[in-house]
């Protein structure tokens, strides 16, 4: 009985070992893994790029895996230190420091990705990805903000074109606001909500347009607790309270109000283009963000980058380098622009006649030239600070001075905790 069991166990072990060993010796094409978060258009675009890359490099296959946005960061953080996970990974530019410190990614070799060349070829905001002699990650596409406007409502109100300055913005919005018999707003002139993209508009655009500088010391010190900051905040909250051209929380989300055709104007990022195109019956146009009182133009741009992880070694590392080169090429960026609607990271692709003058992409691309990119320590936390700043004025009746002082304190604490 005992010996029979022993014999059976030994036999099964040998069989299993034989099975696995045969797989290990196999010599086929190199397979690298790519991870990104799930967004319909981006997955489609990446599938196209992978197809093109595999056609050019028949000895390499790329396996893409995507995750829901909410889980993405946690999954990457858990997988790579465990030796699993991707060889090339997508990350938000703001996470670069975390990923570098946790040794999740390795720098791009300067032979294949010379810094001088990249400095010259990419938009200046990408330089945040550089440290010393190496770039650590590169974007395929970048995003910026612009003013979406509802052409039907503009025609209805008899307005010629989108506003070019903040004063014109308020005047236009007034013409587009509709109120019912009881005084409730049923159509807003412009959407407003710090929970959406407005917190970027506040930080990088309004504060600068009022003469201030939102942060100092490479985004480690909060600086909007100033006269300029107060003016910017008064302007923003004034849209709802004084000028009465908007309401915070109208139709729950600003983009919902615009899609439903109940908002004349809406500030949002280029990633909104895809879903607006799918909205039936909505005739919309895009314009550059309005200039400030003294003509200052500013914009906020952000981007997702791709990097090579520390897991990629030997032939997978070589394959990963080739893949990185392909997805940051001009052709790849044009495909991305056409499929996803995200803007090219290189002026050579972005500033072509066709692209720069494009009705939809033009204003976004032109905005890239004067855009600033905020270095976030914790984007959702820093966004919550501004959301609360407006809520305190809206629901608790605080003044701009009081509220912005509290907000600056809260945000400085977040930055201090991160950079200590």
């Amino acid at each position, binding site marked *: 009985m005992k010996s029979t069991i022993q014999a059976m166990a030994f036999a099964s072990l040998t069989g299993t070992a034989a099975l696995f060993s045969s797989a290990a010796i196999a010599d086929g094409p190199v397979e690298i893994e790519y991870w990104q978060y799930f967004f319909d258009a981006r997955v489609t675009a990446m599938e196209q790029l992978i197809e093109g890359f595999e056609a050019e490099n028949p000895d390499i296959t790329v396996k893409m895996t995507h995750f829901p946005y909410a889980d993405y960061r*946690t999954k990457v953080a*858990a997988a790579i230190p465990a030796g699993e996970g991707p060889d090339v990974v997508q990350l938000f530019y703001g996470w670069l420091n975390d990923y570098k410190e946790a040794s999740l990614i390795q720098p791009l070799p300067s032979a294949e990705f010379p810094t001088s060349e990249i400095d010259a070829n990419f938009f200046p905001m990408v330089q945040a990805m550089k440290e010393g002699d190496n770039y650590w990650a590169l974007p395929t596409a970048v995003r910026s903000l612009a003013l979406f406007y509802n052409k039907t409502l503009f025609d209805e109100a008899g307005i010629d074109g989108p506003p070019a300055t903040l004063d014109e913005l308020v005047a236009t919005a007034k013409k587009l606001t509709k109120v019912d018999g*009881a005084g409730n707003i*049923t159509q807003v002139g412009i959407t407003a909500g710090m929970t959406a993209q407005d917190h970027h508009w506040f930080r990088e655009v309004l504060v600068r347009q009022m003469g201030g500088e939102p942060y100092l010391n490479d985004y480690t010190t909060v600086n909007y607790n100033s006269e300029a900051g107060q003016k910017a905040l008064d302007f923003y909250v004034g849209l709802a309270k004084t000028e009465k051209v908007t309401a915070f929380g109208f139709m729950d989300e600003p983009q919902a109000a615009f899609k439903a055709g*109940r908002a004349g104007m809406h500030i949002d990022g280029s990633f909104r283009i895809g879903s607006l195109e799918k909205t039936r019956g909505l005739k919309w146009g895009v314009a550059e963000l309005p200039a400030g009182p003294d003509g200052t133009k500013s914009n906020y741009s952000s981007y997702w980058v791709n990097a090579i992880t520390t897991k990629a070694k030997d032939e997978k590392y070589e394959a990963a380098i080739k893949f990185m080169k392909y997805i940051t090429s001009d052709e790849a960026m044009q495909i991305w622009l056409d499929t996803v609607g995200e803007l090219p990271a290189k002026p050579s692709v972005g500033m072509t006649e066709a692209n720069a003058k494009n009705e939809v992409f033009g204003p976004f691309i032109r905005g890239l030239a004067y855009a600033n990119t905020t270095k976030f320590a*914790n984007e959702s936390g820093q966004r919550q600070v501004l*959301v609360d700043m407006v*809520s*305190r004025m809206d*629901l608790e009746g605080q003044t701009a001075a009081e509220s912005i002082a509290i907000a600056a304190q809260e945000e400085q604490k977040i930055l201090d905790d991160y950079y200590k």
Partner: protein
Amino acid sequence: MTLYRNLTIKQKQIVWAWAFLAVPVVFYVVIRFYPTGTAFVISFQEWNLLGSRTWTGLDNYVTLWNDPVFWKVFRNTFAYLIIGTPFSLVLSFIIAYHLDKLRFMHGFLRMLYFLPFMTSAVAMAWVWRWFYQGVPIGLFNNILAGFGISQIEFLNSTTNALPAVLAPAIWAGLGFQVIIFMAGIRAIPTSFYEAAKIDGVGWWTVLTQITLPLLKPTMVFIVVFSSIGFLRIFDHVFNMTTNNPGGPLNATKPLVLMIYDTAFNGFNMGYAAAQTVVLFTILLIVSLIQLRLLRSE
């Protein structure tokens, strides 16, 4: 093998029992106790999920004690409990009491009351979120506007937000509590009611002297069940305040949401683990108190 043969039959039965129990025990230890133990350990460390863990002793607890947001959240969590449990208890008893007397369409009405309990909390939260919107899309405000009454801000108000979020949570729990109460009411021997009828006693006295006292075990069970549920409320809050989690200025934030936010938005695992330990302690104390009440029967 010889060890086994030397055991008595009783002892052999115990060995076999353990052999069969071994798998579930290992499973439970790995799935339940190991993560709980790890959470306790992490609460004394600092970890951002990517880097290494560093020991910080009681720092996380000290920060928690001094954090004004934590005390607000603590008050919110107990507000959910203190408003939610009595409301749902009274409401479900009234419904069960009257439903029990009903014969016509009894089954259909019972199904209607139970339906919200089976509905996904996420779906329910989003529909109620839509109801709570202002004119022109919110149901309640449109009705009010139809009567010429001015709008009420349900979710975008620091005073109204918590009750507004609590309402669908109570509504969802009603069905289950109604069923349990009806079972309890049916379990009361009819001889009591007959005796009361013979004595010519009014319905109020029957209710307070016969029905309610005999329903005590049922009530205790429901109070325990619903209070633990309300202390752990998350789905309804998160889905009704997605963009501004925890409601305007933390007005609706329960402890579970604060843990989620600290861990997966702030990536501050040590601090989140400390909050988890606090939640565990609260639940433990509340459960022990209620178990003590049960035992005194």
